[in-house]
């Protein structure tokens, strides 16, 4: 029995971390191609996400599906060191079915299954920030049964209940090592947990006339709670007693978002303008509570202090012919992460987004779409003071979406 292990200090550096501006805005292809706008204009069944109030405006029940492979790349550098995140492809998807229960009905019902979060980052093995994060991925899928009601030609409302499930995977190195000559093995920490949460999504759609429409939506915060996640530590055997395999609880909030959108159509051209106000300040800190504590394994409480953001979006849709439309859009997405809290688990910065896309209707009831979005963050030099880790970051993200919808 190694009872009196001298190792009696906080070995887990109290800086394990993850999270960040982890929200995705890829829940519909035409909206994606139009700079993320879509609150004011119920294009298709994906309005279940963008504005449930617009669902009753559809002509009938529609099936919608898409997949949007996303390739993010992040670079980190100081004047001594540089690193690039490992190449990874994430595949968020969306599926919607819904519309007025029969033609001309005021009542519409629907179901959405979509991916509100799903990115991550993997840094090179044992990179300079490996004690903070080696790799992290947080993905969530929301299921949203929805009801919408057309009160009048002018007013349509809708709402959905949101049930979210997700997974969190996180790994880092630990500052306990064993070495023989140059053969050095660092300790490792791994967290894996499944998360669930509930919320709602409300929308109001106002049709001033055929060419001027307004949308208002509110998506509630969804607290993705993790209970009894797995915490595994790989450490030298002489300190293994201080790093037991244990469970952890945590919580990641997916923020509330209030949006307003205006759409205006002139001839074949539709212009949309959206504003999203995102309540990131709910992500004030990250807590990881372990079931079993030792001098080396203590609960973590990391400050995050995210701030709310206001994101303007612009999009255009041009109907080239009866069967083909082109889309384009742009948005400026300010970061919720304030200086001093820029952690390498999601080194967020203000982002500039440009997008475009095409829709083709080869059959009367069937439309296929393709969208492309390019995002680049501004180069940001900042620090994560909690871990005393500073540097310059830049992230670029490419998303290419393919999908279709079919009117039943």
């Amino acid at each position: 029995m190694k009872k009196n292990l001298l190792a009696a200090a906080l070995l887990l550096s109290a800086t394990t971390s993850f999270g960040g501006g982890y929200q995705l805005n890829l829940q519909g292809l035409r909206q994606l191609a139009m700079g993320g706008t879509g609150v004011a204009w119920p294009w298709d069944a994906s309005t279940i996400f963008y504005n449930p109030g617009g669902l009753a405006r559809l002509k009938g029940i529609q099936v919608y599906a898409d997949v949007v492979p996303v390739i993010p790349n992040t670079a980190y550098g100081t004047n001594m060191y540089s690193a690039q995140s490992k190449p990874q492809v994430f595949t968020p998807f969306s599926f919607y079915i819904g519309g007025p229960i029969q033609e001309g009905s005021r009542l519409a019902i629907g179901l959405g299954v979509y991916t509100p979060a799903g990115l991550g980052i993997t840094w090179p093995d044992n990179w300079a920030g490996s004690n903070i994060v080696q790799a992290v991925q947080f993905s969530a899928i929301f299921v949203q049964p929805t009801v919408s009601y057309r009160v009048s030609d002018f007013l349509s409302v809708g709402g959905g209940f949101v049930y979210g499930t997700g997974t969190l995977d996180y790994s880092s190195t630990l500052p306990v090592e064993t070495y023989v000559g140059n053969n050095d093995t660092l300790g490792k920490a791994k967290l894996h947990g499944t998360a669930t949460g509930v919320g709602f999504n409300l929308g109001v759609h106002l049709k001033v006339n055929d060419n001027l429409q307004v949308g208002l939506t509110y998506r509630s915060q969804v607290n993705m709670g993790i209970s009894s996640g797995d915490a595994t530590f790989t450490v030298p055997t002489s300190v293994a007693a201080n790093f037991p395999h244990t469970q952890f609880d945590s919580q990641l909030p997916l923020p509330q978002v209030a949006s307003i959108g205006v759409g205006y159509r002139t001839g074949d051209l539709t212009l949309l303008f959206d504003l999203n106000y995102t309540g990131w300040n709910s992500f004030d800190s990250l807590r990881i509570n372990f079931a079993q504590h030792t001098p080396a394994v203590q609960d973590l409480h990391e400050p995050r202090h995210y701030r709310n953001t206001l994101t303007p979006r612009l999009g255009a849709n041009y109907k080239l012919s009866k069967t083909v439309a082109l889309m384009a859009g742009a948005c400026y997405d300010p970061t919720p992460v304030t200086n001093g809290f820029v952690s390498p688990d999601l080194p967020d910065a203000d982002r500039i987004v440009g997008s475009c896309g095409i829709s083709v209707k080869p059959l009367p009831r069937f439309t296929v779409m393709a969208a492309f979005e390019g995002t680049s963050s501004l180069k940001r030099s900042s620090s994560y003071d909690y871990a005393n880790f500073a540097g310059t970051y830049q992230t670029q993200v490419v998303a290419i979406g393919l999908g279709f919808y079919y009117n039943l």
Partner: protein
Amino acid sequence: MRRIYIIGAMAVLFAGCKPSVNITKAPIAGSADFSNYLAIGNSLTAGYTDGSLTVSGQLNSYPERLFEQFSLIQGSRGAKGPFLQPLLNSDNGYPGPKFILGITHSACIPGDSSLSPIPFPNYVQDPTDATYTGTTNNFQLNNIGVPGIKVADYRVAGYALITQAAGVPYAARFYHDPTTTPLDELKYRVNNLYPTFFTLWLGANDVLAYATAGGQGDGTGNATPVLPPYFYGPNDITPLAVFDTCYDLALNAAIATGASGALINIPDVTSVPFFTTVPANGLTLTRQGQADTLQAYWGAATWNKVFQVGANYFIIEDNKGNPRQAVPGELILLTVPQDSLTCAGWGTTKPIPAKYVLTTDELQFIRNMTANYNAYIKFEAQLHHLAYVDINAYLGTLSSGIVFNGVNYTSQFVTGGAFSLDGIHPTQRGYALIANQIITTINSFYGSTIPSIDANKYHGVNFPNGN
């Protein structure tokens, strides 16, 4: 379909366009010239760690780290290699074994064992480690740190011979003439190397040796030479006047070539794990009966005593040889035999011998003199327009923790990551942190932009695998 092509082309364009953050601003030297760097000092400069000197320790000393960073400066004022040190050949430890972590078993409690530093098992001195290295590389050396050396030793003729006879052969391994003084050796090396930049970190041993001996020496600052005219007792605190004179002599030798440099002050030696790991109130009583027994045992003694269930201050022997109970702030040395505490009644019915205890008076001597020495070092830095590295203040923040790239370093023994298994000298990571602090000071003083070091890249404490 042309438009789809355009989308496809854009996609390829974006996918191929990965961001990169290469900050290629080359570091500059500012007003200093780092082309030829000389490190002067004691064990901390030599790269001593885990209770001994090894070639790995030398190759990861803070002067080696500084040299690597200095050599990132392009052009004539960047450091040029190689960095010459009086290297050993082995990692066994020289002249005695280094410490490693191992399991030790309690002498009196069956099955009780702990992971703690033990001397490198089956130690044999590598015969090549004793090889004289002073003449290699045209008599040039960039690091002349000598473990154990005091400022007071700088005038002692035959220093290398005296220390060698005492079993500490570090100076004898490379001094050009063993009969000479460390000061003459310094002058000789300066003449050969002609340094443009130096660091001088001396003085810790002038108080540390007294402290590690548990205050068994003359701590008053009025010690007299045991070997006149200049050799003081190893465990005495160097008188301030002697310190000032010798420090000044060494410094003037260091700047003889007009070199710029940095003077590094003396850390509070009593804040290292060697003194802070065994708590003075480590006497834990679990039953009132134990407290009553002790109260009765020492009942006749006139000194204040408190025995109660819970934590109690140990019974110690003060510096006059009298027993008493320790008081808050007093320190027990790491070298106190744990088995004697747990099995032989030390600290309860038998006072912990004075050589394992730093009493309030002794600590006062150490702290006063450290402050006096540091005041003089600061004065000299200002006088000679040299950078002054307040490593004392920096290491003071270790007790509350220094977070570096996500790793929290503390002054905790073994687990703190910064101090090696001897409880006094840093680990490789600790030395890198110290090098960073020196760089920070150099940069602000000389206007240079030397980049800092990723301290986490280097070794900390080696935790063994297997049983």
